[in-house]
């Protein structure tokens, strides 16, 4: 129901106003510009502030920073990356995120394929259960997992967190890929079967190559989810500075900040969103697809 139609784009002209009338400026362009400014300003403020000196940040607001003469410095970034331990935290975020994404998306893709293309009793129930699990509040799994992790002494280790993220992410990825594989035409697989391909071969040679966009959506979604996660990281590796990712480090900085630390905190925040922003702007199309898929679960 939420799927965009495949009608040609040209039909949209019927809805778009033809000229830039005073009315469209007042009721369409002006409010939209206002909303965009409201959404953009906070991030822009932090961006500008992260390049100002400590003294400037303390004395005046960020808007003075964009008034000539400009005197920006990269010192804040140097400081948070080396002394602040954010360099290590950045590495930790990568080391938590990449394996989690790989494990989750691999397993979810196989599960999605099996649920979409194999007919068997219980497939409907399995899918329904997975779908239900995508909305379970994460808090509900924390107590038993933390207890067992403490008993096994794996709290604070990365592999422990990879698996938690896999458990949390697999239902959604499975659902996303299931929806994709289900839409593939049957003829595609019948042709492969006539050529003597078994399930494994039709999965690897027929399904996977066509699934690249869906897999990309799943990868991006999972990447952003793990990279941005605070709760699970806080609980399962947060106590350990050696393994703490960016979200945990930056939230720690926030709580320690006094009025004078804005130049560092803003730089730290920007370090933590460089990856998500790059992913977002480079692969926006797939991210939006993932959002759409997530909203119809």
């Amino acid at each position, binding site marked *: 129901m*939420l*799927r*965009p*139609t495949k009608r040609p784009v040209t039909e*949209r002209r*019927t809805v*778009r*106003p033809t000229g830039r009338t005073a009315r469209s400026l007042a*009721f369409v362009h002006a409010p*939209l510009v206002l*909303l*965009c400014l409201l959404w953009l*300003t*906070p*991030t822009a*403020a932090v961006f500008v502030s992260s390049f100002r000196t400590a003294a400037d940040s303390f*004395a*005046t*607001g*960020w808007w003075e920073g964009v008034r000539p003469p400009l005197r920006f410095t990269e010192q804040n970034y140097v400081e948070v990356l080396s002394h602040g331990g954010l360099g290590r935290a950045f590495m930790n975020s990568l*080391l938590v995120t*990449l394996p989690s*994404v*790989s*494990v989750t998306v691999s*397993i979810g893709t196989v*599960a999605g394929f099996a*649920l979409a293309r194999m007919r*068997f009793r219980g497939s409907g129930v*399995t899918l329904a259960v997975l779908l239900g*699990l995508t*909305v379970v509040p994460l*808090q*509900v*799994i*924390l*107590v038993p997992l933390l*207890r067992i992790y403490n008993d096994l002494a794996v709290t604070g280790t*990365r592999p422990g967190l990879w698996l938690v993220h896999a*458990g949390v992410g*697999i*239902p959604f990825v*499975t659902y996303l890929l299931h929806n994709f594989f289900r839409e593939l035409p049957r003829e595609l697989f019948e042709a492969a079967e006539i050529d003597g391909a078994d*399930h494994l071969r039709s999965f690897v040679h027929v399904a996977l190559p066509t699934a690249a966009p869906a897999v990309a959506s799943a990868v991006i979604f999972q990447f952003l989810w793990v*990279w941005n996660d*605070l709760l699970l990281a806080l609980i399962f590796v947060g106590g350990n500075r050696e393994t703490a990712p960016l979200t945990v480090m930056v*939230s720690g900085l926030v*709580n320690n900040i006094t009025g004078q630390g*804005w130049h560092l905190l*803003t730089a730290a*925040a920007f370090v*933590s*969103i460089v990856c998500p922003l790059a992913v*977002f702007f480079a692969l926006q199309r797939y991210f*939006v697809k993932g*959002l*759409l898929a*997530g*909203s*119809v679960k």
Partner: protein
Amino acid sequence: MSRQVLLSVAVTVGAPVVLLSWLWLVERLLRPLSYRGRRRARPWLWLAPPLAVVGLYLVWPLLSTIWTSFQVRGGQHGLDNYRYLVHSGEVHDALVNNGLWLVGLTAGSLVAGTAVAVLAHLVRWETAAKAVVVMPAAISTVAAAVIWRFMFDYRPPGVAQTGTLNAIVTAAGAEPVAWLVDERTNNAALIGVGIWMSVGLVTVVMSASIKAIPAELIDAGRVDGAGPFRLFRYVVLPQLLPTIVVVSTLLAITALKAFDVVYVMTNGNYDTNVLANLMYRELFLNADYGRSAALAVLLVILVLPVVAVNLRFFRKGRA
């Protein structure tokens, strides 16, 4: 350090390889079976890895939490944890705040997101406008919290205000506001940050839904003489209604689960606690597993009706 890096790279590359090897092994093992036997066994063997992980990390903990919630310190069974939920003032306050989140986040994001989707649809710079509002959905709540603490920054009256909002307030001649401390503004401020992050999702979904409205319908409305506002109210809005319901349920679930924004910005101080933060405190700081499990169960119970609505409308939408 380098061993850790090596392990991470090995797992990243190895996971798909191991999984494919498993499938290959499964197909080898199935070979001696009859056709029917293969058909029956194959799906479950393919699904064994996902079901094992999900069972171990979601289903078992879910059941275990429910069990734990009935245990009090000392190991006896009892309803003490639920008595705490019913009688404790802090739980009531948190529930009220969750209620504020539920109404504020859902309504605010829905209105702003729909507005952006509709307005953006009418202009040529649609893609840019949507990118601007969707961007916050891609960053972490921690970063958003820093971004907004900078906006809400407060300094005593008389000193130059470096926070954007207080600079505006003082420029207008009023006293600066301690947005995150003042109990009249702080919950609204936190929910505002939540809205800032959620509007992207609403915009994306509503936008797709708007583009799915048949152009003939709009044209028909025009021919009948409807102006832009009546066109929206009587033609566009009814078409968007199912989408609005589904998006509302997602926002409601987000509101009930709210944790990060509160944790980073106020840590639940000044009467801003929500259930998830109480639960975190009981789990991590007080190590009271029973109470935190009961709080988690309460969260699930609150989410369930919302999920039910979501599934109902989702089914309808597909049929």
